[in-house]
């Protein structure tokens, strides 16, 4: 209960903070449109040379792009800012102030930042996805919609755990600014369905970096490709990753020595 109240407070602070800078909304919206335009040009280039890519048609890939933007927006607004702050605090030794607070450290470091305006990506992604669904030949039923929502939530949890594990390595490696670049590079692979990649890369993008579960699996749910087994696998992996992230976090905090902040 206390935690929910805490999340709500931080959310409010984050939103209030961003509302001070209204012009940033338009800048952010403009950036979302740049990302959208780039994505559409890329798709158009691909489909100017072919009619389908690895069994995915143009509207289906448009749906993948919408989901990619949507999930990317969630990462940019809620996950990545927290992790970047954590990274800096580990390096500077100011994490002391957080660890001494009477709340679970892992939860606290995961909820402190919220970039409200980044949600423009979520909205643009949603719109793209809805347009894509309209172009699909088949109808999206209740069951698919539910499977989609479940897959999306599980994917989000996995991405969070993955980011946390990456960031926690800062306890040992100290200087890891390049992680942001690394993550964005890997996440960019989600722009395409992972089924088109060679096997080694597909496995990597599924189990090492859960990009497949964050973008491709929800897209499979929408396009009637999802088997119950995959969804069950997603659930299993999500549980596993949550436990692993927790374990590594504990290990990291134990080896954290502060730095005379």
């Amino acid at each position, binding site marked *: 209960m206390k935690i929910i109240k805490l999340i709500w407070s931080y959310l409010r602070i984050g939103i209030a903070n961003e509302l001070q800078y209204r012009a*940033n909304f338009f800048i952010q919206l403009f950036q979302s449109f740049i990302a959208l335009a780039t994505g559409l040009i890329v798709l158009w280039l691909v489909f100017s040379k072919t009619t389908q*890519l690895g069994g995915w048609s143009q509207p289906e890939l448009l749906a993948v792009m919408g989901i990619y933007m949507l999930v990317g927006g969630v990462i940019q607004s809620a996950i990545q800012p927290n992790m970047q702050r954590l990274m800096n605090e580990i390096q500077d030794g100011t994490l002391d102030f957080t660890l001494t607070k009477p709340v679970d450290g892992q939860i606290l470091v995961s909820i402190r930042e919220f970039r409200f305006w980044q949600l423009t990506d979520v909205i643009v992604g949603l719109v793209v996805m809805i347009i894509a669904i309209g172009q699909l030949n088949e109808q999206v039923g209740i069951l698919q919609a539910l499977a989609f929502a479940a897959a999306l939530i599980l994917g989000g949890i996995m991405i969070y755990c993955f980011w946390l594990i990456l960031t926690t390595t800062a306890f040992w490696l100290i200087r890891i600014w390049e992680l942001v670049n690394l993550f964005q590079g890997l996440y960019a692979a989600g722009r395409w369905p992972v089924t088109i990649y060679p096997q080694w890369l597909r496995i990597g993008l599924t189990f090492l970096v859960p990009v497949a579960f964050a973008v491709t699996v929800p897209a499979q749910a929408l396009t009637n490709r999802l088997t119950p087994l995959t969804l069950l696998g997603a659930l299993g992996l999500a549980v596993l990753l949550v436990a692993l992230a927790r374990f590594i976090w504990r290990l990291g905090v134990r080896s954290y020595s502060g730095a005379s902040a």
Partner: protein
Amino acid sequence: MRRYIDFYLTSMKIAILEQFQYRAQNYFYMVGVIVEPTIYLVVWSTIANQQGGSVGGYTAGGLAAYYIVWTLVRQMNIVFTPYGWEDRIQHGRLSMELMRPMHPIHSDVSYFAGWKFVMILLWIPVAAILALIFKPTLNPTWLQVIVFFIAIWGAYLVRTMIYSVLGLITLWTTRVSALFELIFAFEMILSGRFVPMTLMPVWVQHVANYLPFQWTFFFPINALVGQSSPVVLVTGLGMQLLWILIGIVGVRIIWHFGVRRFSSVGN
């Protein structure tokens, strides 16, 4: 002149020593850099295979060569980002640089140039693995190899200049990220970063001819993997030189007017 050479050599040496300590970090960075072209390679070789072996004259092996050379060119054209300039100007750290008896761009150019040697060293095993996996077809002539080695440094300088001009705009306004992202998007499409320029519609290729971007990706890569005539190769180097000079003039003009507007914050 002498002091510049001294400064460059020392600064490069420092960069090499410093960056070599952060090998793990540099490898993190490199994984991110390598995933990107691998994605493009997979997309385009899938299309090539669906089209009966080649797309726009590129076979799967040719595409593999293109994107593996891409990874080296990308290492080469990592430069001080415009976001770095933004940070420097916003947080007032530029005042420290202004105290030096030399334009701050020299320390960027020399530091990143030194860093390249570490990058290339770390890149070699990665390239070997990529080559084993994707089996590129690559038979360059000696002329191509020589032009390539000049062109990657040319690409480095062209990109440094574009992004320095861009970053210096922060002297006027601190809301620059939208502009930066717009330029990055242009680069993505018009540089050969996503796809070899020859696969682009002809009008896009025409537009790209008047912009600096393709000289930072497509030209150096294609110099090695393509079948350009010696005239095209030498002209390309000339175009790089031209854009470097335009960039230098641009930096000088923007600096001249912009630096007066700089008021240090804090520090």
